[in-house]
């Protein structure tokens, strides 16, 4: 069966420090991968998605970047964190079916809570 792992689970970082959040998926190949941010415990905002190695699409301009160095690894990074980067970051992968025929449900990791002080 497929599993998704995110780490670290919690992170407290000073303003201006770098960030690296990692996500890996097991039990599948060539998944579509996603980074969402949830601010204030509510709305989910899509930050990045990737349909393959080295292919990253950004949904919103921001202080963050994403990379996909391997098929099942997705990394969220920042060179210098801002206070506004605080939030709950969720990685997800796309479920059954590939391409335009897939039904598209996403499966989420347990999240990484980032607090920038």
């Amino acid at each position, binding site marked *: 069966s497929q599993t998704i792992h995110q780490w670290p689970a919690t992170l407290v970082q000073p303003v201006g420090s770098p960030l690296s959040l990692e996500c890996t998926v097991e039990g599948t190949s060539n998944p579509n991968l996603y980074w969402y941010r949830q601010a204030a415990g509510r709305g*989910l905002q899509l930050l990045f998605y990737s349909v393959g190695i080295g292919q990253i699409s950004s949904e919103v301009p921001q202080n963050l970047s994403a990379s996909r160095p391997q098929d099942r690894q997705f990394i969220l990074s920042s060179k210098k964190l801002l206070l506004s980067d605080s939030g709950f970051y969720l990685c997800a992968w796309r479920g059954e079916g590939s391409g335009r025929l897939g039904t598209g449900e996403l499966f989420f990791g347990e999240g990484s809570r980032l607090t920038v002080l």
Partner: protein
Amino acid sequence: AQSVAQPEDQVNVAEGNPLTVKCTYSVSGNPYLFWYVQYPNRGLQFLLKYITGDNLVKGSYGFEAEFNKSQTSFHLKKPSALVSDSALYFCAVREMVTGGGNKLTFGTGTQLKVEL
């Protein structure tokens, strides 16, 4: 762009009573709709989806959702609520993206509180 709306920030219901969490959608073409649940400090868990076929979709933990095309709604329901159902519920709609993939656009979430 596709979108979903959840008009209620919070829904309160007594344990044993039926519950409904509302969602309306705005899409071009046939909608692919989803419900997720989130417990505190956890990731989202997939509950159910509507792709095509029967308007009543059954999902995990006794939840079901009714797709209504004329009212553009996809309300989540459960015949008898449990205290353990208390959580944050999200409705979502699928959108295609460049490169052959798709993404989910989520509503703002509805906090469900089930009381004894």
